């Protein structure tokens, strides 16, 4: 499908795309779904998601121990080998202990014109945390204005909010269409669409996603019999091949709780009122990442809700090895699923995927249980 090929293109070589974009506008790298992208975009900049996909991560060994996750190792390698030289800078929201230290190591070992820590609150459920959240956004806005010599007006923020709402609406629609008819496009294609939306210039992404949503909505909805419906839960999925292997084993990932999926597009920003307040509010209601706190069981409840809504028969926990926040939540989330009789399996990934044959056998065994 032509509409999808363009997404493939940028995901297959995001750094090449970055080079092209950076000739037109300044790009700011980020690696967390709590990055307030609207503010970056409103400053006339291009928010560029860092996935750390380059295979050689040796240079990171000089800065990070072997027990650091492959995402952070990959991002650090990319920047230290000069592959991200076309960036104008980076922004690090407070995510986990590891990304916090990545921020330090990045700041101390690189020389980009711009750098910002956006130290958001860790809890999102109290009035003082929310007040602080908005103040941090205001500080970030001022940092961008100062760093790039631009003015981030309320009007430009509102324009960016509208654009991001379009992106999120289209992504949700595409994910929901596929949940209804998994045969529409493959999981790998969907994965690339979501990742591509974080790499492409957002105006381009918004129109491509809207076109794709329309096109998919018009297609006949195939529903092959005998296939199982599963959900992926974890930090991120930057390896679309997982889907192909899962599909070969007879199951489709029809929904997810990932920052390359539902956590990215969940919730819209109110388009009236103060734009920074509105941006902050979305994060209070959005599905949380385990590095944040909203309630003791928010993620478990959301998981069961998704299981019901999307008629999920089994869950694959996709764990990035050494990702502490997700590893801590796994037993409790599994407990929620066990309580409802939903089978689950844990797949731990470090850098590259396990050999296909091995992974296929694991998935086949799991799918047979469903």
């Amino acid at each position: 499908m032509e509409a999808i090929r363009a997404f493939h293109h940028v995901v297959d070589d995001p750094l090449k795309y970055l080079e092209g974009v950076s000739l037109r506008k300044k790009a700011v790298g980020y690696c967390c779904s709590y990055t307030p992208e609207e503010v970056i975009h409103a400053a006339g900049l291009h928010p560029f998601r860092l996935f750390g996909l380059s295979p050689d991560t040796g240079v990171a060994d000089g800065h990070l121990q072997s027990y650091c996750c492959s995402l952070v190792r990959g991002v650090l390698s990319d920047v230290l080998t000069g592959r991200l030289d076309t960036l104008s800078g980076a922004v690090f929201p407070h995510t986990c202990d590891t990304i916090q230290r990545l921020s330090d190591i990045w700041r101390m070992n690189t020389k980009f014109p711009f750098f910002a820590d956006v130290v958001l609150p860790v809890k999102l459920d109290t009035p003082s945390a929310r007040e602080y959240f908005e103040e941090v956004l205001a500080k970030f806005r001022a940092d961008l204005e100062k760093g790039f010599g631009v003015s981030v007006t309320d009007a430009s923020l509102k324009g960016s909010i509208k654009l991001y709402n379009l992106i999120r609406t289209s992504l949700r629609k595409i994910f929901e269409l596929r949940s209804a008819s998994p045969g529409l496009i493959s999981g790998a294609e969907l994965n690339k669409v979501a990742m591509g939306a974080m790499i492409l210039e957002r105006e381009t992404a918004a129109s491509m996603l809207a076109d794709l949503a329309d096109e998919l909505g018009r297609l006949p909805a195939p529903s092959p019999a005998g296939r199982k419906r599963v959900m992926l839960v974890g930090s991120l999925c930057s390896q679309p091949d997982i889907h192909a292997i899962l599909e070969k084993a007879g199951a489709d990932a029809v929904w997810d709780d990932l920052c390359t999926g539902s956590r990215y597009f969940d919730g819209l920003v109110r388009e009236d009122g103060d734009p920074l307040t509105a941006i902050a509010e979305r994060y209070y209601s959005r599905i949380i990442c385990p590095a944040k706190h909203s309630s003791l069981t928010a993620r478990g409840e959301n998981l069961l809700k998704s299981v019901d809504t999307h008629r999920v028969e089994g869950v694959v926990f996709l764990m990035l090895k050494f990702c502490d926040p997700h590893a801590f939540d796994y037993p409790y989330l599994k407990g929620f699923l066990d309580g409802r009789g939903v089978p689950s399996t844990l797949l731990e990934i470090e850098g590259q995927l396990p050999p296909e044959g091995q992974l296929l056998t694991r998935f086949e065994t799991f799918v047979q249980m469903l």
Partner: protein
Amino acid sequence: MSAPEKEKKRSFRSAKRMRDIMTEYYINAKTAPQTGKKVAWITSGGPVEPLIVMDVIPVYPENYGAMIGASHMGGDLCAKAEAMGYSPDLCSYARADIAAAVENGGPIGGLPRPDMLICCNNICGTVLKWYEVQARYFGVPLFILDTPFCHTEFPDQARKYVRRQFDEYIAFLETACGRPFDEEKSLEVGRLSIEGQKLWKAVLDATAHKPAPITAFDAFFFLALIVTLRGTQVAVDFYRDLLQEINERINDGVFALENEKYRILWDNLPIWYRLKWLSDTFASHGACLVADTYTTAWCGSMKYIDENNFFESIVEAYTRIYLNIGVDEMVKTVFEMIDKYQVDGLVIHSNRSCKPYSFGQYDIEKMVREVKGIPTMTIESHMTDERSFSESATKTRIDAFMEIIKARKG
């Protein structure tokens, strides 16, 4: 003084006193249901003073983690947590505590059940997840004191946010205890907290003396009271006595090592199940671990504390602790310690259990070599899970490291 006499004097009379105090403390905590006192579990970097004011018994799972490690019970408990689904890559304190809570495990048969949980994330994000686990397990209220990370600065927004949370903390305690916060008592607790920290600092400063009267291994042991009983007269009295004992040793010429030749700085938490072995191994080379970055954390924020305005100034002191600052800020402390204690080498404990303490260590190591020109070495472990430790590989590395120091210094 003859050699055997000196050897006898080298064991601390304060050590017995501390064991007695800790035993009494744990008995009080374990019998809280009979005495009607409330028990709060609190993170090691958390503000304990408001609990002392409210007469709530603070209990530290991290202190218990150290005890579990020192008793060589960490491997077994961690394995049990892994059977519950927790990854072996997670913090070994957290794994050991999660399993110990379920089966009343560890050296004192489990910690007393908490009435509330106080989690301050100034030491890591792990405590947030760990305390969420325990809040679900025990079904008790959880208060989170969220201290924004201060990479290079402490912005006004963060100050205001933490300040407001101290009010929320006190309101939380008033609700949990059903009585108002005693402002008058808080002044006394604040005074005792400062005095305790000053004495603790004086204890650690004493190792600047050459040869050192105590080692970092002793500091790891004597640390327990400044963590658990900060803000009490007991802690103040104890550290005053300990300081006196240390000064007596200096006067009597009784030092940690019979023949101190080299002085070492330790970075990160201790390896609890190999304290003695590490101490002996370094001592066999005439090397004394004179200081560490870990135990200084309990007096390292004193520069932010205003004695006349304790409960206002601890907002900054609790937020800007050693683990809640950027790597380039941390290295300044390391440099200061290298100079102050006149060390010949830096031992970096790369602690798989503590990512915020360990990531960035390689950058620190590089700067220490470049700026201070002293040798460094790395030892890897999980601080309280003895299954992860390789004694023979570590011994080889220590020997090689000491050879470099000897060649340099003679």
